[in-house]
């Protein structure tokens, strides 16, 4: 019979409950600030539902009515410089943070409201209605509210998608030497998704000052918490990850505030992340102006019980009891909030011409100009003004590719202490699995970060760093295939952030992604990511084929204010080629390809390791091909000048790449070429790709699955015949 010893997690797990004594002791100024924020947020949300009912909000209006206590109570425990983000249900948190920013000393709804507050109301309402004067010019709407100056870093429509980003805000605040904290708000449903759980782990491992604030409103759409998890006390998850956790009644704004004060102190003291679970309730359904009971997943009685514990009633009751508020002042505050909302609505709405009495429409001038649709998918590249391009003045000699990789990063990290590198094992093994970060951990111990295996979390963390803007993250993927496990962060978050939040917020993130085709790692480790990244607006793509190019393209990527994926190939790492003797500061300009061989017969378009393969194939075949090394692969950075001139000369195109046809890069390119250069083509555009399946482990099957020089030579032969 073994002995059984009960074990305890290290981290604490506490329920915090207020007493009347706490209410009696609470600072009157704090209670007043809470009261006015709560009333104003409630009035805002009621007004939004009114507009939604009138069909004036396009898309869902996720109301926070009932949940305001959690947001207001917690935000009032924060300081300027602290950063928050949230989920699809984020109006209340956004407003609390924005109001706190413009009126740090609070405000009084019975008096005339200052312009700054009116502007916050107006711009938030405009954003929710999709209008030009919104914070993101109407692009983001209800689910993407961002006002970085106020520390509101952007709400998120992917459940759990914002959580890793917040870890990045926390990292940036700490690295900058401040004691700032980050708070990420999410729901009970989001407590189950990988992004969130991965981030619990990463944040705890790195002791990041981030608070995971769970608004447990009992439902994810219509699914109850008990149905969705074996431990419905969601704060129980924290201790398992080593995170100090609190559970608190979210209908009690003072309780939330006191718990949050403890959590914030914990984080500011450098003791790592915290988790606060606020039990609360949304009075309405997932979205729109109807109660949840109307949809049958809960009862009217349940709703009535929760409404009886309304946070505003509770707070007003205590304030009246303490003589801090009169009933008349309470009612006047509610009326003041309501009229402030009507004034905001007045600016955006007008009577509908020919409509029914009282029917309104958006004032036409408030809509964004449709021409704005694609503006700001990427930045304007003005960051390259004054940058020094490479050229004949850069002395070159033969160098090993991988050494140039490590060396340019060393050079940039020395010159720019904003740069931080993260990835699996980048801090060990003498420069990670391939030597790309060789010697860097010793030189920059706090900026070379070996991560837990959680691509989604650490990519998101890097995304958060990029959005914060004080540092420039470089993420390494051990294999390109792992992009799929980080896909939400790469494509929904990092790739879309600039455009979705209005077009002018930089997202300077570099992703180094390795292609290992031919190395025997099989179906899940052999991908070329170029084709998939090329479909994602926002991303720029570079694919260096020589050490010289690597240095120049990495320097460009690190300077760029857009996310850039730098694709690397294992075949190149140990190759040698021309590289700089000692100049690691030049950059290769965005959108400039290289003609590696001039020719008349056909234009061969290649990138990465396939450039050398193509050149060898051309030499073998005797076809007078022109070989173009694209260098920049994305839609916005492709060198149409060079490519166009070549096609106009040769009238034939062969696009060569190594990987499978399904995720291949050349598809969109050939489409674009025929669109732009149709009248210059004398033959269908030819392509070399791998087969359909991803390469297998077996050496012969692997070789049969991808393309190299032999396949290019064969295609050139066919091109010659045709």
């Amino acid at each position, binding site marked *: 019979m073994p002995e059984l010893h009960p074990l305890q997690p290290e981290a604490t797990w506490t329920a915090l409950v207020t007493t009347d004594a706490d209410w009696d002791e609470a600072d009157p100024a704090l209670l007043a600030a809470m009261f006015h924020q709560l009333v104003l947020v409630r009035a805002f949300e009621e007004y939004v539902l009114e507009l939604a009912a009138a069909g004036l909000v396009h898309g869902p209006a996720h109301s926070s009515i009932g949940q305001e206590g959690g947001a207001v109570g917690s935000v009032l425990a924060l300081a300027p410089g602290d950063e928050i983000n949230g989920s699809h249900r984020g109006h209340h948190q956004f407003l609390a943070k924005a109001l706190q920013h413009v009126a740090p000393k609070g405000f009084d709804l019975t008096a005339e409201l200052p312009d700054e507050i009116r502007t916050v109301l107006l711009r938030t309402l405009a954003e929710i209605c999709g209008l030009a004067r919104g914070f993101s010019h109407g692009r983001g709407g209800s689910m993407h509210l961002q006002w970085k100056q106020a520390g509101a870093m952007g709400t998120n429509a992917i459940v759990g998608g914002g959580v890793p980003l917040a870890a990045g805000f926390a990292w940036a605040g700490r690295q900058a030497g401040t004691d700032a904290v980050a708070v990420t708000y999410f729901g009970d449903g989001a407590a189950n998704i990988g992004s969130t759980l991965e981030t619990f782990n990463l944040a705890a491992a790195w002791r990041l000052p981030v608070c995971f604030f769970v608004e447990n409103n009992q439902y994810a759409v219509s699914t109850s918490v008990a149905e969705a998890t074996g431990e419905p006390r969601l704060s129980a998850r924290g201790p398992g990850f080593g995170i100090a956790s609190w559970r608190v009644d979210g209908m009690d704004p003072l309780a939330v505030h006191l718990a949050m004060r403890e959590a914030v102190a914990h984080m500011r003291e450098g003791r790592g992340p915290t988790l606060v679970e606020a039990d609360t309730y949304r009075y309405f359904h997932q979205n729109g102006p109807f109660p949840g009971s109307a949809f049958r997943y809960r009862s009217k009685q349940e709703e009535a019980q929760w409404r009886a514990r309304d946070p505003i009633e509770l707070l007003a009751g205590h304030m009246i009891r303490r003589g801090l508020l009169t009933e008349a002042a309470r009612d006047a505050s509610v009326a003041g909030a309501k009229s402030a909302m009507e004034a905001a609505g007045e600016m955006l709405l007008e009577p509908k011409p020919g409509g029914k009495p009282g029917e309104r429409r958006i004032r036409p001038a408030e809509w964004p100009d449709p021409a704005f649709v694609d503006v700001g998918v990427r930045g304007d590249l003005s960051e390259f003004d004054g940058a020094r391009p490479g050229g004949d003045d850069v002395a070159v000699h033969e160098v090993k590719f991988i050494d140039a990789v490590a060396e340019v990063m060393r050079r940039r990290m020395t010159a720019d202490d904003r740069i931080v590198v993260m990835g699996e094992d980048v801090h060990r093994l003498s420069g990670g699995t391939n030597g790309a970060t060789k010697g860097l951990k010793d030189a920059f111990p706090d900026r070379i970060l070996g991560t837990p295996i959680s691509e989604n979390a650490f990519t998101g963390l890097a995304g958060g760093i990029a959005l914060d803007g004080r540092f420039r993250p470089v993420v390494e993927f051990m294999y390109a295939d792992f992009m799929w496990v980080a896909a939400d962060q790469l494509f929904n978050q990092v790739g879309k952030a600039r455009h979705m939040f209005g077009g002018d917020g930089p997202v300077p993130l570099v992703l180094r992604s390795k292609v290992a085709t031919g190395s025997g790692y099989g179906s899940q480790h052999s991908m070329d990511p170029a084709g998939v990244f090329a479909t994602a607006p926002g991303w720029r793509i570079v694919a260096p084929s020589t050490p010289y190019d690597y240095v120049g393209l990495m320097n460009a990527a690190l300077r760029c204010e857009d996310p850039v994926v730098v694709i690397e190939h294992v075949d190149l790492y140990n190759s040698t080629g021309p590289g700089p003797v000692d100049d690691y500061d030049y950059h290769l300009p965005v959108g400039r390809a290289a003609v590696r061989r001039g020719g008349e017969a056909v234009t061969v378009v290649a990138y990465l390791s396939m450039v050398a393969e193509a050149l060898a194939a051309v030499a073998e075949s005797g076809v007078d091909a022109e070989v173009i090394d694209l260098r920049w692969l994305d839609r916005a950075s492709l060198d149409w000048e060079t490519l166009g001139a070549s096609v106009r000369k040769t*009238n034939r195109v062969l696009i060569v790449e190594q990987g499978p046809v399904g995720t291949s890069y050349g598809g969109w390119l050939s489409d674009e070429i025929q669109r732009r250069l*149709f*009248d210059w083509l*004398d*033959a269908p555009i030819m392509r070399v790709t791998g087969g359909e399946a991803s390469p297998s482990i077996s050496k012969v099957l692997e070789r049969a699955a991808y393309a190299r020089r032999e396949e290019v030579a064969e295609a050139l032969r066919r091109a010659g015949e045709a």
Partner: protein
Amino acid sequence: MASLLRMPEIAANMIEAVLNEWPVAENATFAAGDPIATVETDKAVVDVPAESAGVLVRCLIEPGKAVSVGAPMAVLAAPGEVIDDVDALVRRLVGGPPATADEPTPAGAREVTQNAEPASATTHARIFASPLARRLAREHNLRVEDLRGSGPNGRIVRDDIRQALAARSDEPAPAAAARPRYDEIPHTRMRRAIATRLSAAARETPVFTIRGSARVDALLALRGELNASAGVKVSVNDLIVAAAARAHAAIPDMNVVWTEEAVRRYHDVDLSVAVATEHGLVTPVVRGAQRLTLSGLAEVSAGLVGRARQGKLRQDELEGGTLTVTNLGVYGTEEFSAVINPPQAAILAVGAARPEAVVVDGAPAVATVLRVTLSVDHRPVDGALAARWMAHFLGLLEAPIRILV
């Protein structure tokens, strides 16, 4: 299997064409490749070849009707196919009564009164040629139909065009000593169209001309003033066109065309402006010219001229109008007369503004003089009317401020 013969798209962007003739009678058989319909566009008369052998069961369109592209024209059957109820078959295939002559829209067939000029026949079979080869052929006036393709599927590729061009320049060479005494410039479609239209006009229209001249110093000064201030640049020709438009508005009996049944007097003044392009003369129409301000007219006409030069005018921009203004002033031509552009009633030929000796108050003086010749279709317009018009028009040129108001 019975099938429908539909109006083929003979030229790119063609909307409709006229069914000219049925070379095969109803119930007659035909072999693959036999012409089974003759259709006419404003550019060509084309035999539509049968794709396979068969029987012409029913003609749905009467000769002379315009039919939109893709609309059914006839019901065909396979050789030997027995059809019990032709009407039922037609209903099934066409889905309703066939398009009739009274349907006014281009979706159906309609009466066509005006015959376009015939041109050589082409067939509709697809000829494989690379996009580049097609463009080069176009630029060098080669017909892909005349070439043989050496590419895959017999596709005509760049090298075939190069060879054809080389052969073309080689051709005379074998004849060595006898150097050709002329170059043959193959007719472009445009040149053919110009030729056909204008010779028809010259044959059918009784024309008289009247001349006039105006002192235009004031007009030139006004133009200088306008261009110093206005955003839109106004040319001398714009002023002349504007004056003609005002004259037409003042004397509406000039704003006419002749038709067999009646003289058609238009409410709006639509004037054509002759534009010389690389490929020949085109005459785009400025519509409602009497309503346009001078700068508006200048803008419209600059747009038309620009697009004419790029060959981008639409067919509808070339149709209509009662008067063309043609101006050879830039070439220094003193005076000339021009051929009326049917069915318009007149054409105004404008020479260069040149200094000439004139008599002012009984004494010789130098003035800038512009000479114009108006050629007029005598059928709708008599000489006295044209003379009145000319006097009004010249008056406007000499007191140009009236053009502006």
